[in-house]
């Protein structure tokens, strides 16, 4: 059993409940287990990604400490975003989600979203997505840009979240259209993105 499948099992999500098989969660666990099978190159890319996000978390903590303000106020959040953006002024798309890791991310995501099994997850990605058809204010992600005020947040399906590498508390994944973005969860700053990370998203 893979690490992620094991973690789901540890949560009681694949075991029987009240004597009934947990039919809903078994396909999800299988998908996740499949997605976690990586070769050596991907494992190396994954390790590098973890180093990059750990370094980002340190930067976030250092800037937050330097500014000294608690993140409760909008002013403090904006100051933190500006400070981090200044420290990462040279950052470009791919700084954290490096080219060698991009294939792995696309595969991990596709494994959760493709085919009939992925229909519910695709619906979740489209739900609230700022580039959904009924959303009047779509935007294109840009490194060091703030997540636009008033733009909705896509749901990130639990199956995708469990399949993707875990993030430190200061970062989270979101989708903008099919792009995967990494957002600073306090500064609301886009720190990196992966274009076309998700496959096409038909929901019927």
């Amino acid at each position, binding site marked *: 059993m893979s690490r*992620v499948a094991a*973690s789901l099992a540890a*949560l*009681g*999500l694949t075991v029987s*409940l*009240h004597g009934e098989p*947990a039919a*809903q*969660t078994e396909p*999800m666990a299988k998908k996740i287990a499949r997605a976690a099978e990586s070769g050596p190159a991907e494992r190396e890319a994954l390790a590098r990604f973890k180093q990059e996000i750990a370094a980002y978390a340190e930067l976030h903590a250092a800037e937050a400490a330097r500014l000294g303000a608690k*993140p*409760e*106020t*909008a*002013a403090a*959040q904006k100051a933190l975003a500006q400070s981090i953006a200044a420290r990462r002024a040279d950052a470009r798309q791919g700084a954290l989600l490096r080219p060698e890791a991009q294939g792995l991310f696309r595969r991990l995501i596709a494994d959760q979203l493709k085919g009939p099994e992925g229909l*519910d*997850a695709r*619906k*979740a990605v489209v*739900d*609230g997505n700022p580039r959904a058809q*009924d*959303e*009047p*204010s779509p935007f294109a992600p840009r490194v060091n840009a703030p997540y636009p*005020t*008033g*733009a*909705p*947040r*896509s*749901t*990130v*399906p*639990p*199956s995708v*979240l*469990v399949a993707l590498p*875990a993030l430190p508390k200061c970062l*989270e994944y979101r989708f903008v259209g099919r792009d995967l973005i990494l957002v600073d*969860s*306090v500064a*609301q700053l886009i720190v990196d993105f992966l274009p076309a990370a998700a496959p096409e998203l038909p929901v019927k």
Partner: protein
Amino acid sequence: MLTRRRLVVGLTLAALAAVAEASAQAILTLPRRDGSVRFAVIGDTGRGSREQYEVAAQMTAFHKEYPFTFVIMLGDNIYGSDTPGDMARKFSTPYQPLIEAGVRFQASLGNHDNPNQRFYRPFNMDGQRYYSFRASKSGLAKLTDIGVSFFAIDSNYLDKTQLEWLDKELSASKSDWKIAFFHHPLYSSGRTHGSSLEARAVLEPLFLKHGVGAVFAGHDHFYERTKPQKGGIVHWVSGAGGSLRKGDVRASQLTAKAFDRDYHFMLVEIAGDDLFYQAISRTGATIDSGVLHRPGAAVAAASPPPGPAAIPVAVPHVAPTGRTTPEGAAGEAQPPRATPTTTPASSPTPKPKPSPTEKPEPSPTPPAP
């Protein structure tokens, strides 16, 4: 003859106008038992629209007869921009009478909410995207009794950390009643969104495992109470506190009761193993009411003593014309230009107090409700 007719018409119009301005009457059906836990439920509120203010005015009117101690918010608390002025116009001004009466708001996050709302002190999230609290007859406090436990979940982002937290919190809770609330409904008959099956796949097993008794969600802009689902859990969709999609409910096997013609809020009372509920429209009309016996609890051998009979509530008169709310930030409704006629004269809208997340604005004038 003509003069007399004009006089009659004039008097009739004046009488009609007087009726329109007068309070209407509604009915409170909840039993108001001694020692019960009393709260209200609102979802998808934060537009600053006239309709949101009208629902808020009804909540204030009902609070006078049914003094609920807190309100759970089911997400999409603030649509669009969230400047200090927006926070006032879309939250603290419409609910100011309740806030001043000591009612506490407990928010969960929707897909239109900036996650940093968790730092907005009036939402009582204590900086957390997900959290739990307990309530008892005396309100919200560090309790000595088991009370009723509430679990505010961030359904936008059900990562492993949150699921582990939920499993642990539910497991640790000694309360008989465990109530979960969040934004995306696990069961919904909405055409626009419907059931969130991915969220259901991970949350429902935990609810069953730990005996969650009732679930409240928003997202779909209407009212729906499901028939009991797995584990006997009834799921409510209450997503029309400030947003409405008329005609969005499709006939479904799930539905016990649905209402998508106007905005609404809910009142809930928990007494022993019984959860009494009443859904009330923007006009003050009761659209659903009843009682849910806690799933898994023994059926009482004898009927519990009845509470006081239903009582009338003086509510603001509101024209029965709820309009569908456009979606998205661009569909953000314009605030009412003048004091709504539905606001009771005894409920002025005082200046909102700035919170720690709000930057003080140069102008002390609050937005006109």
